[in-house]
């Protein structure tokens, strides 16, 4: 993954892992990389990686097994899906509607496209 330098990297790490859990790329109870592995793979500071992982442990998304490593929490996917659903309309749909209005795409065309795309 590529990090941008406009927001703290530990948050970008946490967000990336959350996305992997939501899409199913990381399964529940699956072990995640160690912070040192993660740091080496993405060329980032190990302390930064550790901070990102610690945040996920605090949020209940990951859990630690002593001496073994960190794992995806059994209910992590549900937890994340619920919280993303809460912000879905405000963060995804509303900006789309604003853009459609700004460039003059009728909302009925948008709705039609969504129906087609959803059925395809």
């Amino acid at each position: 993954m590529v990090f941008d330098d406009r927001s703290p990297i530990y948050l970008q790490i946490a967000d990336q892992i959350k996305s992997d859990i939501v899409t199913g790329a990381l399964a529940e109870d699956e072990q995640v990389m160690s912070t040192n592995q993660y740091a080496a793979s993405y060329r980032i500071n190990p302390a930064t990686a550790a901070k990102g992982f610690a945040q996920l442990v605090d949020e209940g998304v990951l859990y630690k097994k002593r001496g073994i490593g960190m794992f995806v929490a059994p209910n992590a996917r549900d937890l994340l899906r619920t919280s993303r659903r809460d912000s879905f309309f405000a963060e995804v749909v509303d900006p789309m509607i604003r853009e459609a209005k700004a460039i003059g795409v009728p909302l009925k065309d948008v709705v039609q496209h969504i129906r087609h795309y959803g059925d395809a």
Partner: protein
Amino acid sequence: MNQTLAVRTENLSVSFAGVPALDRLDLRLAPGKIHGLLGRNGSGKSTLAATLAGFRQPDEGRVLIEGSDLGTALEPYENAVVTSRICLIRESGDLVDAAAVKHVIALAASLRPYWDNELAGELLDRFEVPTNKRVQKLSRGKKSALGVVLGLASRAPLTIFDESYLGMDVPSRNLFYDALLADYAEVPRTVVLSTHLVSEVSTMLEEVVILDNGRLVTQSPVDALRGRGASIVGPVAAVDEFTAGFTVLAEERLGGTKSTTVLGDLDPVLLAEAAAAGLEVGPVGLQDLFVHLTAPTGASR
């Protein structure tokens, strides 16, 4: 387990023929972290690196090196107990040109108390540095690579790379970054990377020191600087009113519209205020923030 060292400077000043290169610096480098020493060319990075390593005596103030096995904090200048624990690798290399690479390595092995010969051999292979050649016969890139190998294999509790890797091409620099992170994970130590290539190294750093004209601009955890800058765009009067309480880094006007770059944390309340005033707020990347923080006086401040 290796020892790591903490560094402190108090009112540190160094000048050349009366011209200050470092101007009353008060710094603290926490032990066991990777620190970035950032600044434009001529900002004092190399002078600071040389003074921290004890290559140079301060004109005023002092450098103190602290480590649990050192007892009290000690000044590095002309103190072998301290300097044996510090490794400074400079772009110039400080190498004996007439010596063969293998002799340079053997010398380092005999002088460096924490030297790891296996690591040195492995890195020389990886960087493809020919060990039978004389230093003067090496290309600039291979000379830089040799410097980097010496710095990493020294495993010194305080290791300073002063732009020493800038002579290397991009693939070799990436090899260096990977080797540094891997060995740092294995043997934690205090590392200082001095550079003006901010975007290339920023993800590897934990803290940064930014110098400008020999003065300290800021010292901060690097993640805290990301997202600390913001650009505020909108009608001139509204922008000026909103940014009145902030440290302004840059201003740009285009007709009735103004874009002002500020330093500061914009909390949700302020963001809502900005939105209500019809202002657009955008993030400023670390590289841009660095450019603004070290811009020539009068240009964009």
